[in-house]
């Protein structure tokens, strides 16, 4: 038996209704055993899911035959190096850059925005797209909102764009769209993912129906789950059940926030401002339709059109040597765990991150460094 870590994890759940937690853990064990084979891998694509799994010690309650891996669910981490470079080059040209906090320390080819700031560039951390608008109103200088994040965050960008931007504000969109990357991961032969746990709040926007074509194409179930420990456990029980019964479908286990059609008003604004186009996600691959870019109607506020962004100016700076050994790409593709990386906790720490996964509060490495990732279950199961 797993022993004390498991008991401790279950006792941590006590404030969340211990009877239900225990019943769900037992159901998850039974369902996994009923599969009659091991290991079975399922993937979630959300930094907040990983935070909850790690924080509440859920992995120590998972059956040994069930592998719950984090896929490309950290929007900061999958922002590609050339996208960071664009921000860095603009910053070095003297443009004010406003961006979400974690982006500042994410490495580009040779520099992060924080490095540019140390050289004197004007970098502003914001928490909301609205704050980029306020910043632009407070100055006559050019301001670029380096806009990152998945669909939940992109709708906020869309809303401020549709509200009308000050003339000195433009958008550098590195927004990403989750459903297409699930296709990529599902098709990676090495990954062997048999089902997905989808993020509740992103699905609040897109609705559960957005996953139906994926399920039809790949024959893999998708369960939408919330962020409570019990939400995650219940979602996994349902997911393993669907794998066991070979009945791939979309199941919404987060009905208190998610509907089948989603938030239509938000979707309308999202697609009015953005179009999906192919592009690289850091460490993953080229993802068809995975990037959100401004539509042609918004060319006048597109930083890529307003400014000449000369990335070659960065090429004479040598990339940091340690970055060569970083395995963030494999971690985000679900092929490796943070602890597989020889830099993890050694040369790469939250204080001195080498890779993007150690920078962001939603990155697998930072989360595992903070909470411990895979608890030692003690002895042989």
């Amino acid at each position: 038996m797993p022993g004390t870590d498991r008991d401790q994890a279950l006792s941590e759940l006590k404030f969340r209704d211990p009877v239900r937690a225990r019943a769900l853990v037992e159901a998850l064990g039974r369902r996994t055993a009923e599969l009659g084979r091991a290991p079975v891998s399922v993937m979630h694509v959300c930094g907040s899911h990983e935070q909850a799994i790690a924080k509440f010690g859920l992995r120590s309650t998972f059956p040994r035959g069930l592998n719950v891996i984090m896929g490309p669910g950290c929007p900061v981490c999958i922002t590609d190096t050339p996208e960071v470079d664009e921000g860095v080059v603009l910053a070095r040209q003297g443009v004010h850059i406003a961006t979400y906090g974690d982006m500042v320390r994410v490495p580009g080819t040779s520099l992060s925005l924080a490095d540019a700031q140390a050289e004197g560039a004007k970098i502003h951390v914001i928490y909301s797209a609205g704050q980029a608008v306020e910043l632009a109103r407070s100055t006559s200088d050019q301001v670029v909102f380096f806009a990152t994040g998945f669909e939940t965050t992109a709708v906020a960008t869309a809303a401020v764009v549709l509200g009308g931007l000050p003339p000195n504000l433009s958008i550098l969109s590195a927004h990403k769209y989750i459903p297409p990357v699930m296709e990529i991961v599902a098709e990676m032969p090495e990954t062997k993912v048999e089902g997905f746990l989808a993020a509740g709040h992103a699905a609040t926007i897109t609705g559960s129906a957005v996953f139906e074509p994926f399920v039809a194409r790949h024959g893999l179930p998708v369960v939408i789950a919330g962020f409570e420990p019990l939400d995650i456990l219940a979602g996994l029980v349902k997911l393993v059940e669907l794998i066991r019964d070979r009945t791939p479908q979309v199941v919404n286990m987060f009905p208190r926030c998610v509907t089948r059609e989603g938030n239509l008003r938000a979707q309308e604004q999202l697609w009015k401002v953005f179009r999906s186009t192919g592009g690289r996600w850091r460490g993953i691959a080229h993802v068809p339709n995975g990037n959100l870019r401004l539509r042609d109607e918004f060319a006048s506020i597109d930083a890529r059109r307003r400014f000449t962004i000369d990335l070659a100016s960065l090429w004479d700076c040598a990339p940091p040597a340690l970055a060569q050994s970083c395995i963030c790409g494999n971690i985000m593709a679900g092929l490796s765990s943070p602890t597989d990386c020889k830099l993890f906790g050694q040369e790469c720490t939250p204080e001195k991150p080498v890779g993007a996964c150690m920078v962001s509060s939603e990155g697998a490495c930072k989360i595992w460094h903070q909470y411990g990732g895979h608890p030692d279950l003690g002895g042989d199961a």
Partner: protein
Amino acid sequence: MCLGVPGKVIEVAGNVAIVDFWGVRRQVQLDVVDEPVAPGDYILNHVGFAIRRIPESEIGETLALYEQLIAQAEQDDLMAEDVRNEIAASRDDPRAGN
């Protein structure tokens, strides 16, 4: 940036709501919320924008996780920090006087 945060609507003025998050009052944009909101409703706030009006019957369950996170004493807890950042994403209530 995955985690939205629920709060209670105190007042609505056009496109902006004053929302109470555990005693902290903030302005939240209503541009993309799925349904009209009124004082007393709960909304899910993400980066300064309400993305969902939470049905009344589901408010209790929705709040539970956050209450635990907000109560969390440790400053370095990642989830609690994300929740604090989400609340910071909204503007101060201009009439709060602090």
